[in-house]
């Protein structure tokens, strides 16, 4: 309220009023400026130079300053400024390098007053001194700033920025002698108008050009700058070094920035490219604009607050040839439309989620998060700051702690470390990996490996353990040993997904006895407890069989020659397992795929699992001894996609590598590449560099293998002269000495080189190790206390 009253006093009795309105100009505007009493605005552009009166309901054209039949380039304005003390005085910056002043008090049609053609390049900016009537400053593309005394015919002083292109010059509002200049190379300079020889201070404000700067109208030390790097920065200039105190990241390069009158924290920006809106920011809230004006159809080129003490009127000119008056009350407030929500993962897999309180309280009576995790909402209250006009939102923060077993990624790390991907025969690799998976309590994965081995390597020797198996699964119809074996495994895996609970089985109901339930690693863990007992027991059984199987097989290596003689039954079952349960139509396909199935007693079992809905068929066709491995490829392919979709890309990639050529052609390169990338990314996040490198090496995608060829350069400095080594081997170009000499044996190190990061001395790994056993000082004798860890 207090502020409001101040505004009215400042405005006196003639308080301005108006509404959001616009008028069409004949040409795009480059800049606009208002006169002191806020009743008129001047619009300047390449082909326009007019004064409009600001009336209650509309803009009224008052004067066209662009006179003459063939207007010269002096009329092509890059910038315009209305003097804030002398209401008849205007200055423009012309694109041809001229600085022109205009006197509205002249009786003739042509109001041109003075013409200064001292700049060699386009003048980007003109600026009147805020209190001195005759002082005008200009900044040009040629790198010079010139100060003119309007009573004289030429400039009184010239300031050289020592660089290309001045983009903006602004007199300080409070310090009589100071002005700021921003440059195309990213620098901002402060000058004392009395000392043209050298700038007072300079700092780099942005990367790339600084397009604009603006002094805070009240706070003498604050300077806002905007640049091509899409940032608006606020600098505190009162300290010794200019200090960046606020930074707002916008979405496009910032063309203009203007502090909002009477509002300490607000500033308006517009952009030079792509984005047409005008934003008003509260610099303390840099993430979302305080207000937005969205009227313009092309980039906004000039913005100005209508009155020095009135924060509610903003004028803007644009390339779309319109001039707008924006009322603050009509601005859109993006914050009203925003959903204040945040989500973050913690270091140990905890998840924090913050949302508007109203949203969360709605389901407060929700049952506790499954899996026994604790959920406790925490409320923070920020003390409301009265000067901030932001909508206050109170949010609830929920933290979900992950239980140790379920969300920890230990299994991933261990699996990655322990898996073997190459170096042994296919069967051995599969066995090894199955064992690894089993030890980590991931029976489904383990079984998959076993099955893969069976599918793609010699099956003949599998027959031997058959009887054993049957004995245990007595309820199964006995087709032959294979069918037994496969059946058992098939159903167990299948039921992984069906959770075994609400089955509607028709034929092999008894099979349920042998079914083993386990949970996909990514599935919810609430069910784990319920079915755990059974799962362990039953699965243990089956695994035992497998182990028996393997031991037999190893005795029987010779038989492995006969490839492709898998039992027929194996395949329809596999099919079911790999099948994506979400797609029932696969059922038909599958049957069609297996000619034998149709003729035989193909039993179909329907399962209605809890969350997945599938029709799964189990067919038990006749035994056919010769089945080529490629026959399984579609199945394996679907299995891999399934794993990948479940989030276990590790499995997908590992199988891909182990199977190698057997499966590679079945899966399109992009998918493979995608899997590899995901897995490698995961591995690197867990800092499993060796594994990730192995995967890269073993991959067959060219896009992946080339990962190893990137950033293979290591830049080193010469240990003698401390300058970067150019790339010619062991000798430094500059000091002509061998750079990497072992400090212990004084020979050149070609191989593992270890060096101290403190003093940069080092040498052969072994030598340094030995040395540091006996001494803690640097072997080079520099006195540094080196450490080897």
């Amino acid at each position, binding site marked *: 309220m207090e502020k409001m009253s101040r505004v009215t006093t400042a405005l006196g009795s003639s308080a301005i009023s108006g509404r959001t309105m616009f008028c069409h100009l004949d040409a*795009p505007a480059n800049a606009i400026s208002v006169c002191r009493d806020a009743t008129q605005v001047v619009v300047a552009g*390449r082909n326009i130079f007019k004064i409009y009166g600001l009336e209650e309901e509309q803009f009224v054209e008052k004067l066209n300053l662009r006179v003459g039949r*063939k*207007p*010269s*380039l002096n009329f*092509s304005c*890059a910038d315009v400024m209305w003097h804030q003390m002398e209401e008849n005085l205007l200055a423009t910056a*012309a*694109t*041809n*390098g001229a600085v022109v002043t205009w006197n509205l008090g002249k009786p003739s049609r042509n109001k041109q007053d003075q013409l200064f*053609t001292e*700049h*060699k*390049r*386009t003048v980007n900016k003109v600026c009147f001194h805020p209190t001195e009537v005759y002082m005008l400053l200009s900044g040009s*593309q040629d790198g010079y700033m010139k100060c003119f005394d309007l009573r004289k015919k030429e400039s009184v002083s010239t300031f050289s920025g020592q660089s290309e292109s001045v983009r903006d010059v602004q007199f300080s509002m409070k310090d009589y002698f100071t002005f700021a200049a921003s440059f*195309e190379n990213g620098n901002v300079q402060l000058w004392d108008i009395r000392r043209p020889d050298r700038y007072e201070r300079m700092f780099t404000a942005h990367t*790339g*050009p600084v*397009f604009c700067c603006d002094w805070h109208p009240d706070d003498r030390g604050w300077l806002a700058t905007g640049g*091509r790097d899409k940032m608006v920065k606020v600098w505190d200039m009162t300290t010794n070094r200019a200090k960046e105190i606020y930074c707002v990241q916008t979405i*496009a*390069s910032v063309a203009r920035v203007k502090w909002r009158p009477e509002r300490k924290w607000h500033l308006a920006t517009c952009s*030079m*490219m*792509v984005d*047409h809106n005008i934003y008003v920011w509260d610099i303390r809230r840099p993430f979302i604009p305080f207000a937005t004006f969205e009227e313009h*159809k*092309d*980039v906004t080129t000039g913005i100005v607050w209508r009155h020095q003490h009135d924060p509610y009127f903003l004028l803007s000119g644009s390339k779309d040839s319109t001039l707008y008056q924006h009322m603050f009350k009509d601005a859109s407030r993006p914050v009203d439309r925003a959903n204040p929500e945040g989500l973050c993962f913690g270091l140990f897999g905890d998840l924090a989620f913050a949302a508007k309180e109203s949203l969360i309280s709605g389901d407060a009576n929700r049952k506790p998060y499954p899996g026994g995790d604790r959920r406790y909402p925490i409320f923070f209250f920020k003390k409301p700051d009265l000067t901030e006009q932001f909508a206050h939102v109170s949010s609830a923060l929920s933290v979900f702690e992950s239980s140790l077993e379920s969300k920890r990624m230990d299994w991933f790390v261990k699996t990655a470390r322990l898996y073997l991907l190459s170096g042994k025969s296919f069967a051995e690799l599969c066995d090894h990996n199955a064992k690894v998976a089993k030890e980590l309590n991931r029976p489904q994965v383990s079984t998959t490996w076993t099955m893969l081995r069976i599918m793609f390597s010699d099956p003949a020797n599998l027959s031997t353990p058959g009887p054993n198996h049957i004995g245990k699964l007595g309820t199964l119809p006995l087709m032959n040993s294979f069918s037994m074996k496969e059946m058992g495994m098939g159903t167990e895996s299948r039921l992984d997904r069906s959770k075994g609970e609400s089955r509607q089985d028709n034929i092999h109901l008894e099979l349920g006895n042998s079914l083993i339930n386990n949970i996909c690693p990514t599935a919810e863990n609430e069910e784990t407890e319920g079915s755990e007992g059974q799962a362990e027991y039953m699965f243990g059984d089956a695994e035992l069989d497998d182990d028996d199987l393997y031991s037999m097989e190893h005795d029987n290596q010779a038989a492995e020659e006969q490839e492709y003689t898998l039992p027929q039954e194996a395949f329809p079952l596999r099919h079911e397992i790999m099948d994506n349960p979400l797609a029932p139509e696969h059922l038909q396909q599958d049957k069609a795929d297996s000619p034998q199935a149709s003729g035989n007693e193909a039993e179909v079992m329907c399962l209605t699992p809890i969350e997945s809905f599938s029709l799964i068929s189990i067919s038990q066709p006749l035994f056919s001894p010769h089945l080529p491995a490629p026959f399984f490829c579609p199945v394996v392919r679907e299995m891999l996609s399934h794993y990948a979709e479940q989030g276990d890309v590790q499995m997908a990639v590992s199988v891909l590598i182990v199977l190698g050529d057997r499966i590679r052609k079945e899966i399109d390169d992009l998918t493979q590449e995608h899997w590899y990338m995901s897995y490698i990314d995961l591995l690197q996040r867990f800092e499993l560099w060796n594994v990730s490198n192995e995967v890269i090496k073993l991959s067959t995608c060219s896009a992946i293998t080339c990962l190893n060829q990137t950033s293979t350069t290591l830049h080193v400095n010469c240990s003698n002269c401390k300058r970067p080594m*150019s*790339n*010619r*081997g062991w000798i430094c*170009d500059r000091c002509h000495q061998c750079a990497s000499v072992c400090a212990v044996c004084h020979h050149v190190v070609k191989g593992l080189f270890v060096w101290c990061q403190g003093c940069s001395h080092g040498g052969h790994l072994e030598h340094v190790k030995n040395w540091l056993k006996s001494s803690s000082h640097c072997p080079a004798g520099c006195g540094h206390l080196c450490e080897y860890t």
Partner: protein
Amino acid sequence: MDIQDQDATARWEALGSRDPRSRGTAMEHISQEVMQRVESIGPIPATVPSPVATAGHPTSDLNDILARLLMLSKRCPFDDVRERCVWLLQNVQDFGVRIPRPLGNGPSRFIPEKEILQVSKVDPRTQSIFEDAFAALGRLDNISLVMGFHPQYLESFLRTQHYLLQMDGPLSLHYRHYIGIMAAARHQCSYLVNLHVNDFLQVGGDSKWLNGLDGAPQKLQALGELNKILAHRPWLLTKAHIEHLLKAEEHSWSLAELIHAVVLLTHYHSLASFTFGCGITPEIHSDGGHTFRPPSLSQYCVCDIANGNGHGHLEERRGNHQVSEVSGEVEVLMERMKQLQECRDEEEASQEEMATRFEREKTESMLVATAEDEECVPSRDVSRHFEDPSYGYKDFSRRGEHVPTFRVQDYSWEDHGYSLVNRLYPDVGQLLDEKFQMAYNLTYNTMAMHKDVDTTMLRRAIWNYIHCMFGIRYDDYDYGEINQLLDRSFKVYIKTMVCSPEKTTKRMYESFWRQFQHSEKVHVNLLLMEARMQAELLYALRAITRYMT
């Protein structure tokens, strides 16, 4: 076979290693393989009259290898590889197998070979850039060699090109090379086309595409129009063209892809200008770069044996001759620059003075082909602009199309183009910006034999003259300066190079700035190339911006 091929590629690549030992091993492998092949077919080639034509598979294979060895023996930045290659070729010859000889005189037809090659020996920085380039590509192309005169620029150029072709980007690799081919073909630049046909096939491109644009996917065919306009008349580019590309349903381009394509197109258009402007010769190991015919049968015999040095002598002699004739040319130019500087310091030239200046320029210049007198002579500045000979670029005014002048103050690279490119194709804006600035600001403060000369004015005149030919105007430039600083033969050269580079001849190259060094002429070429690229880019980006708003 695949594996063998891979092995072979790996071996060639190892030659680019910085470690002399691995280079040695690779060289050892190669020489073993070559000798093996030579022994297996040893006696045949001697009896075959023309091995190139009739050679069966093994021989042509061998010939490829030999050509490659020859290239290495000349171009490899590593001494040891060069020596080994020479030695190996000698050995092969001793076996009675014909070995190839390079055709032409080094990397450029215009510049004596030894002058180019000694560059790298003098300057360690150039040498290291060459080594980098060689390691990255397994070759050191002639363009890089010629640009080696200006290592700072070369570095920036290679970095940009590498980013455009190899690094992350919206377009797939074979698309990039294909677009390169399309662009270079527009100017019939066989050198660049050959180079990229190889690369295109190497990254797995479909050889059917190479039969012509018809064989390429529709998406690329649609780009043909843009390519044509950009290359010859960028000012005709409108937002309708952009819309056509972006809204073609299944064959449509995304904005990011389009920006990538546009940058590639402009890069290769301007690179074609450079290639012709410097008379770049085919790579030694590609077709037309070498011959298997014995020297005695060749009409090139003299110069071939001398490897270009014969020509060099000739040129030098002629050059010396010319020097006496035209001495003072440089001084005149410098004097003019000085005068301009002074005269401008005093005051803007008066109206009449400008008029007479134009009159003289008009009669002097034969280029003013169709300088239609505008209805009324507009204000001084504008008339200056229209009168400029380059503005009479035949395609520009002959058809009577009215094309509004492009004002840099309204759409400049620094303010607008950069932001747009960087937004859609991150980092490229920065790279291009650096490259433009490097080219624009490059100076050694020398002119011919004079030192400590401020060449800013001259560089700006050249840059603006080129932009002027594309109808791009700087409000703050006095176009009269161009007429003062650039003489007729130079203008002819610039215009040919920029507008129809394929017509550049050695005579043109020699007839401008006769006293200047080759390195300075290459510098001019760099300026031309970058200015042209920026001009095309500005038009293309402006059209895209208009489409977006």
